[in-house]
Protein backbone atom coordinates (compact mmCIF):
# COMPACT_ATOMS: atom_id res chain seq x y z
CA UNK A 1 0.00 0.00 0.00
CA UNK A 2 1.43 3.34 -0.99
CA UNK A 3 0.52 5.50 1.97
CA UNK A 4 2.80 8.43 1.33
CA UNK A 5 1.00 10.28 -1.43
CA UNK A 6 2.31 13.58 -2.59
CA UNK A 7 0.12 16.21 -4.13
CA UNK A 8 1.31 19.02 -6.28
CA UNK A 9 0.01 22.53 -6.56
CA UNK A 10 -3.39 22.79 -8.13
CA UNK A 11 -3.73 19.02 -8.02
CA UNK A 12 -5.48 18.34 -4.74
CA UNK A 13 -8.81 16.67 -5.37
CA UNK A 14 -11.08 16.89 -2.36
CA UNK A 15 -11.06 13.13 -1.77
CA UNK A 16 -7.26 13.14 -1.59
CA UNK A 17 -6.81 16.27 0.45
CA UNK A 18 -5.92 14.38 3.58
CA UNK A 19 -9.33 15.03 5.04
CA UNK A 20 -11.29 12.00 6.17
CA UNK A 21 -8.84 9.49 4.73
CA UNK A 22 -10.25 6.81 6.98
CA UNK A 23 -13.28 6.76 9.19
CA UNK A 24 -11.20 6.57 12.36
CA UNK A 25 -9.11 9.59 11.42
CA UNK A 26 -12.03 11.80 10.54
CA UNK A 27 -12.50 13.08 14.07
CA UNK A 28 -16.17 12.25 14.20
CA UNK A 29 -15.46 9.77 16.96
CA UNK A 30 -13.57 12.32 19.01
CA UNK A 31 -15.55 13.42 22.04
CA UNK A 32 -17.05 16.88 22.35
CA UNK A 33 -15.57 19.34 24.85
CA UNK A 34 -16.99 22.53 26.31
CA UNK A 35 -14.62 25.49 26.44
CA UNK A 36 -14.58 28.21 29.11
CA UNK A 37 -12.42 31.29 28.65
CA UNK A 38 -11.43 33.89 31.22
CA UNK A 39 -10.98 37.13 29.37
CA UNK A 40 -9.14 39.12 32.05
CA UNK A 41 -7.48 38.40 35.37
CA UNK A 42 -10.07 38.69 38.10
CA UNK A 43 -13.07 37.96 35.88
CA UNK A 44 -14.78 34.60 35.80
CA UNK A 45 -14.49 31.94 33.09
CA UNK A 46 -17.33 32.14 30.60
CA UNK A 47 -18.60 29.51 28.23
CA UNK A 48 -17.10 30.21 24.82
CA UNK A 49 -18.26 27.24 22.78
CA UNK A 50 -17.42 23.63 22.11
CA UNK A 51 -15.03 21.60 19.98
CA UNK A 52 -13.87 18.07 19.21
CA UNK A 53 -10.61 16.67 20.57
CA UNK A 54 -9.12 13.28 21.34
CA UNK A 55 -8.05 14.14 24.90
CA UNK A 56 -7.85 16.99 27.40
CA UNK A 57 -4.50 18.28 26.23
CA UNK A 58 -5.59 18.41 22.61
CA UNK A 59 -8.82 20.07 23.72
CA UNK A 60 -6.81 22.82 25.46
CA UNK A 61 -4.69 23.40 22.37
CA UNK A 62 -7.68 23.35 20.06
CA UNK A 63 -9.41 25.84 22.36
CA UNK A 64 -6.34 28.07 22.20
CA UNK A 65 -6.38 27.90 18.40
CA UNK A 66 -10.12 28.24 17.93
CA UNK A 67 -11.24 30.59 20.71
CA UNK A 68 -8.28 32.84 21.65
CA UNK A 69 -7.08 33.95 18.21
CA UNK A 70 -8.19 37.52 18.82
CA UNK A 71 -6.71 37.89 22.31
CA UNK A 72 -9.94 36.82 23.98
CA UNK A 73 -8.40 35.05 26.92
CA UNK A 74 -5.81 34.64 29.63
CA UNK A 75 -7.02 31.27 30.90
CA UNK A 76 -8.84 28.28 29.43
CA UNK A 77 -10.88 25.52 31.03
CA UNK A 78 -12.10 22.51 29.08
CA UNK A 79 -14.47 19.82 30.24
CA UNK A 80 -15.83 16.90 28.31
CA UNK A 81 -19.43 17.69 27.42
CA UNK A 82 -20.68 14.36 28.78
CA UNK A 83 -19.71 15.43 32.30
CA UNK A 84 -22.15 18.32 32.19
CA UNK A 85 -25.60 17.62 33.60
CA UNK A 86 -28.20 19.90 32.09
CA UNK A 87 -31.70 20.70 33.27
CA UNK A 88 -34.54 19.43 31.16
CA UNK A 89 -36.40 22.17 29.24
CA UNK A 90 -39.65 20.23 29.72
CA UNK A 91 -39.34 20.73 33.47
CA UNK A 92 -39.11 24.50 33.07
CA UNK A 93 -42.58 24.84 34.53
CA UNK A 94 -41.91 23.39 37.97
CA UNK A 95 -38.31 24.62 38.06
CA UNK A 96 -38.70 28.30 37.24
CA UNK A 97 -42.34 29.35 37.20
CA UNK A 98 -42.80 29.29 41.02
CA UNK A 99 -40.28 32.15 41.35
CA UNK A 100 -42.37 34.39 39.15
CA UNK A 101 -44.73 35.86 41.77
CA UNK A 102 -42.07 36.29 44.46
CA UNK A 103 -41.02 39.81 43.61
CA UNK A 104 -39.91 40.32 47.24
CA UNK A 105 -36.84 38.24 46.41
CA UNK A 106 -35.53 41.17 44.37
CA UNK A 107 -33.89 43.81 46.56
CA UNK A 108 -36.02 46.58 45.07
CA UNK A 109 -37.68 47.83 48.26
CA UNK A 110 -34.74 49.69 49.74
CA UNK A 111 -34.46 53.45 49.77
CA UNK A 112 -31.11 54.30 48.22
CA UNK A 113 -29.26 57.56 48.82
CA UNK A 114 -28.88 59.63 45.64
CA UNK A 115 -25.10 59.21 45.64
CA UNK A 116 -25.44 55.51 44.92
CA UNK A 117 -25.84 55.16 41.21
CA UNK A 118 -26.26 52.20 38.92
CA UNK A 119 -27.87 49.79 41.37
Amino acid at each position, binding site marked *: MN*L*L*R*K*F*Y*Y*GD*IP*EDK*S*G*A*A*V*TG*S*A*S*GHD*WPLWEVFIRSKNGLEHKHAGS*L*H*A*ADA*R*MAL*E*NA*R*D*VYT*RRMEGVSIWVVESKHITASNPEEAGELYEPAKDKVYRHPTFYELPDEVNHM
Partner: protein
Amino acid sequence: MNQKKTSYILHLADNSLILGQRNSEWCGHGPVLEQDIAITNITLDLVGQARSLYQYAASLLGEGTTEDSLAYLRTEREFLNCLLVEQPKADWAHTVLRQFFFSTYQYYLCQQLLSHPDAQLAAIAEKSLKEVRYHVRWSGEWVIRLGDGTTESKQRLQLALAALWPYTGELFMPAAYESGQGTDLSAIRPLWNEKVQAVLREATLDLPGETFMHSGGKTGVHTEHLGFILAEMQYMQRTYPGCEW
Protein backbone atom coordinates in the same frame (compact mmCIF):
# COMPACT_ATOMS: atom_id res chain seq x y z
CA MET B 1 25.82 47.54 2.39
CA ASN B 2 26.61 44.12 3.80
CA GLN B 3 25.51 41.58 1.20
CA LYS B 4 26.20 38.58 3.42
CA LYS B 5 23.89 39.96 6.04
CA THR B 6 21.00 40.62 3.67
CA SER B 7 21.42 37.13 2.20
CA TYR B 8 21.25 35.75 5.71
CA ILE B 9 18.06 37.64 6.52
CA LEU B 10 16.51 36.57 3.20
CA HIS B 11 17.43 32.96 3.99
CA LEU B 12 15.58 33.18 7.31
CA ALA B 13 12.62 34.91 5.68
CA ASP B 14 12.41 32.47 2.76
CA ASN B 15 12.35 29.48 5.14
CA SER B 16 9.32 30.92 6.93
CA LEU B 17 7.53 32.12 3.80
CA ILE B 18 7.86 28.90 1.82
CA LEU B 19 6.82 26.67 4.73
CA GLY B 20 3.94 29.05 5.38
CA GLN B 21 2.90 28.84 1.74
CA ARG B 22 3.12 25.03 1.87
CA ASN B 23 1.08 24.76 5.04
CA SER B 24 -1.52 27.13 3.63
CA GLU B 25 -2.45 24.32 1.22
CA TRP B 26 -4.23 22.77 4.23
CA CYS B 27 -6.57 25.73 4.53
CA GLY B 28 -10.04 24.27 4.16
CA HIS B 29 -8.62 20.74 3.86
CA GLY B 30 -7.56 19.98 7.46
CA PRO B 31 -8.47 16.57 8.91
CA VAL B 32 -10.92 18.20 11.34
CA LEU B 33 -12.05 21.80 11.71
CA GLU B 34 -10.01 22.41 14.86
CA GLN B 35 -6.77 21.19 13.27
CA ASP B 36 -7.49 23.11 10.08
CA ILE B 37 -7.51 26.25 12.23
CA ALA B 38 -4.40 25.14 14.14
CA ILE B 39 -2.26 24.60 11.04
CA THR B 40 -3.44 27.81 9.42
CA ASN B 41 -2.67 29.72 12.65
CA ILE B 42 0.87 28.37 12.41
CA THR B 43 0.93 29.38 8.77
CA LEU B 44 -0.01 32.94 9.66
CA ASP B 45 2.76 33.02 12.29
CA LEU B 46 5.27 31.90 9.66
CA VAL B 47 4.12 34.43 7.08
CA GLY B 48 4.24 37.12 9.78
CA GLN B 49 7.83 36.22 10.60
CA ALA B 50 8.70 36.35 6.91
CA ARG B 51 7.13 39.80 6.59
CA SER B 52 9.16 41.25 9.48
CA LEU B 53 12.35 39.86 8.00
CA TYR B 54 11.57 40.99 4.44
CA GLN B 55 10.73 44.48 5.67
CA TYR B 56 14.06 44.63 7.47
CA ALA B 57 15.95 43.26 4.46
CA ALA B 58 14.18 45.76 2.18
CA SER B 59 15.23 48.65 4.44
CA LEU B 60 18.86 47.49 4.21
CA LEU B 61 18.73 46.93 0.44
CA GLY B 62 17.07 50.25 -0.36
CA GLU B 63 16.63 51.28 -4.01
CA GLY B 64 12.87 50.82 -3.89
CA THR B 65 12.99 47.26 -2.59
CA THR B 66 9.88 46.31 -0.59
CA GLU B 67 8.72 43.23 1.29
CA ASP B 68 6.44 42.53 -1.67
CA SER B 69 9.16 42.79 -4.30
CA LEU B 70 11.27 40.36 -2.26
CA ALA B 71 8.47 37.83 -1.90
CA TYR B 72 6.84 38.18 -5.28
CA LEU B 73 9.47 39.27 -7.77
CA ARG B 74 12.50 37.13 -7.06
CA THR B 75 13.10 33.99 -9.12
CA GLU B 76 13.74 30.44 -7.90
CA ARG B 77 17.51 30.78 -7.88
CA GLU B 78 17.26 33.86 -5.70
CA PHE B 79 15.30 32.07 -2.98
CA LEU B 80 17.55 30.82 -0.18
CA ASN B 81 15.22 28.54 1.79
CA CYS B 82 16.29 25.02 2.72
CA LEU B 83 14.89 22.10 0.72
CA LEU B 84 12.92 20.74 3.68
CA VAL B 85 10.30 23.49 3.60
CA GLU B 86 9.57 23.28 -0.13
CA GLN B 87 8.84 19.54 -0.26
CA PRO B 88 5.29 18.88 -1.48
CA LYS B 89 2.46 18.54 0.96
CA ALA B 90 1.61 14.90 1.58
CA ASP B 91 -0.52 13.58 4.43
CA TRP B 92 -1.03 14.89 7.97
CA ALA B 93 1.84 12.77 9.35
CA HIS B 94 4.21 14.31 6.81
CA THR B 95 2.98 17.81 7.64
CA VAL B 96 3.31 17.57 11.42
CA LEU B 97 6.69 15.83 11.24
CA ARG B 98 8.12 18.46 8.90
CA GLN B 99 6.73 21.17 11.16
CA PHE B 100 8.33 19.50 14.16
CA PHE B 101 11.74 19.22 12.46
CA PHE B 102 11.65 22.82 11.27
CA SER B 103 10.17 24.39 14.41
CA THR B 104 12.68 22.63 16.65
CA TYR B 105 15.48 23.98 14.48
CA GLN B 106 13.90 27.43 14.50
CA TYR B 107 13.48 27.33 18.27
CA TYR B 108 17.19 26.90 18.96
CA LEU B 109 18.11 29.34 16.20
CA CYS B 110 15.83 32.03 17.63
CA GLN B 111 17.38 31.50 21.06
CA GLN B 112 20.79 32.25 19.59
CA LEU B 113 19.45 35.25 17.70
CA LEU B 114 18.13 36.74 20.95
CA SER B 115 21.65 37.87 21.78
CA HIS B 116 22.41 39.03 18.24
CA PRO B 117 24.23 42.38 18.19
CA ASP B 118 21.73 43.63 15.61
CA ALA B 119 18.83 44.81 17.77
CA GLN B 120 16.33 44.48 14.95
CA LEU B 121 17.13 40.80 14.34
CA ALA B 122 17.10 40.13 18.07
CA ALA B 123 13.67 41.75 18.38
CA ILE B 124 12.25 39.69 15.50
CA ALA B 125 13.69 36.55 17.11
CA GLU B 126 12.12 37.41 20.45
CA LYS B 127 8.68 37.79 18.92
CA SER B 128 9.09 34.65 16.81
CA LEU B 129 10.31 32.57 19.73
CA LYS B 130 6.95 32.79 21.51
CA GLU B 131 5.20 31.51 18.40
CA VAL B 132 7.78 28.84 17.69
CA ARG B 133 7.62 27.46 21.22
CA TYR B 134 3.96 26.66 20.61
CA HIS B 135 4.69 25.21 17.15
CA VAL B 136 7.21 22.81 18.70
CA ARG B 137 4.76 21.77 21.38
CA TRP B 138 1.85 21.33 18.97
CA SER B 139 3.78 19.44 16.27
CA GLY B 140 5.73 17.33 18.78
CA GLU B 141 2.51 16.17 20.40
CA TRP B 142 1.10 15.20 17.02
CA VAL B 143 4.24 13.22 16.19
CA ILE B 144 3.87 11.30 19.45
CA ARG B 145 0.13 10.89 18.98
CA LEU B 146 0.47 9.42 15.49
CA GLY B 147 3.61 7.38 16.14
CA ASP B 148 2.22 5.88 19.31
CA GLY B 149 -1.25 5.59 17.78
CA THR B 150 -2.81 3.06 15.44
CA THR B 151 -1.00 0.72 13.05
CA GLU B 152 -1.91 2.98 10.14
CA SER B 153 -0.92 6.25 11.83
CA LYS B 154 2.42 4.76 12.86
CA GLN B 155 3.06 3.45 9.36
CA ARG B 156 2.27 6.84 7.86
CA LEU B 157 4.60 8.59 10.26
CA GLN B 158 7.37 6.07 9.66
CA LEU B 159 7.03 6.70 5.91
CA ALA B 160 7.05 10.46 6.45
CA LEU B 161 10.20 10.06 8.54
CA ALA B 162 11.93 8.14 5.74
CA ALA B 163 10.86 10.78 3.20
CA LEU B 164 11.84 13.86 5.25
CA TRP B 165 14.94 12.74 7.12
CA PRO B 166 17.32 13.21 4.12
CA TYR B 167 16.32 16.90 4.06
CA THR B 168 17.18 17.60 7.70
CA GLY B 169 20.97 17.58 7.20
CA GLU B 170 20.91 20.79 5.20
CA LEU B 171 19.62 22.73 8.20
CA PHE B 172 23.05 22.35 9.77
CA MET B 173 25.28 22.77 6.69
CA PRO B 174 26.23 26.45 6.85
CA ALA B 175 26.06 28.45 3.63
CA ALA B 176 28.78 31.02 3.03
CA TYR B 177 26.51 33.88 4.15
CA GLU B 178 25.83 32.20 7.50
CA SER B 179 29.37 32.58 8.79
CA GLY B 180 29.93 35.61 10.97
CA GLN B 181 26.20 36.16 11.55
CA GLY B 182 26.37 35.47 15.26
CA THR B 183 24.66 32.09 15.04
CA ASP B 184 26.38 28.73 15.33
CA LEU B 185 24.66 25.80 13.62
CA SER B 186 27.15 23.31 15.05
CA ALA B 187 25.91 24.24 18.52
CA ILE B 188 22.26 23.83 17.48
CA ARG B 189 22.73 20.42 15.94
CA PRO B 190 23.24 18.39 19.18
CA LEU B 191 20.31 20.19 20.84
CA TRP B 192 18.10 19.49 17.83
CA ASN B 193 19.22 15.83 17.76
CA GLU B 194 18.49 15.40 21.42
CA LYS B 195 15.01 16.89 21.22
CA VAL B 196 14.09 15.07 18.00
CA GLN B 197 15.34 11.73 19.27
CA ALA B 198 13.46 12.10 22.54
CA VAL B 199 10.19 12.78 20.72
CA LEU B 200 10.71 10.07 18.09
CA ARG B 201 11.48 7.59 20.86
CA GLU B 202 8.33 8.55 22.71
CA ALA B 203 6.49 8.13 19.41
CA THR B 204 7.92 4.55 19.35
CA LEU B 205 9.53 5.16 15.94
CA ASP B 206 12.74 3.63 14.66
CA LEU B 207 15.39 6.32 14.49
CA PRO B 208 16.83 6.76 11.00
CA GLY B 209 20.41 5.64 10.45
CA GLU B 210 23.17 7.47 8.63
CA THR B 211 21.96 8.43 5.18
CA PHE B 212 22.68 10.74 2.27
CA MET B 213 21.60 14.31 2.96
CA HIS B 214 20.30 16.58 0.21
CA SER B 215 21.45 20.18 0.08
CA GLY B 216 21.47 23.16 -2.24
CA GLY B 217 18.37 25.14 -1.30
CA LYS B 218 20.29 27.54 0.90
CA THR B 219 22.39 28.58 -2.09
CA GLY B 220 19.45 28.77 -4.52
CA VAL B 221 19.72 25.29 -6.04
CA HIS B 222 16.26 23.92 -5.40
CA THR B 223 14.21 20.82 -6.04
CA GLU B 224 11.71 21.05 -8.88
CA HIS B 225 8.94 21.80 -6.36
CA LEU B 226 9.90 25.39 -5.54
CA GLY B 227 9.11 26.61 -9.05
CA PHE B 228 5.53 25.44 -8.70
CA ILE B 229 5.10 27.19 -5.35
CA LEU B 230 6.45 30.44 -6.76
CA ALA B 231 4.32 30.14 -9.90
CA GLU B 232 1.20 30.06 -7.76
CA MET B 233 2.35 32.53 -5.11
CA GLN B 234 3.74 35.11 -7.53
CA TYR B 235 1.12 34.83 -10.27
CA MET B 236 -0.89 37.91 -9.28
CA GLN B 237 2.07 40.28 -8.96
CA ARG B 238 3.61 39.09 -12.18
CA THR B 239 0.39 39.26 -14.19
CA TYR B 240 -0.84 42.52 -12.65
CA PRO B 241 2.34 44.33 -11.55
CA GLY B 242 1.78 46.55 -8.52
CA CYS B 243 -1.70 45.19 -7.85
CA GLU B 244 -2.90 45.75 -4.28
CA TRP B 245 -5.63 44.33 -2.08
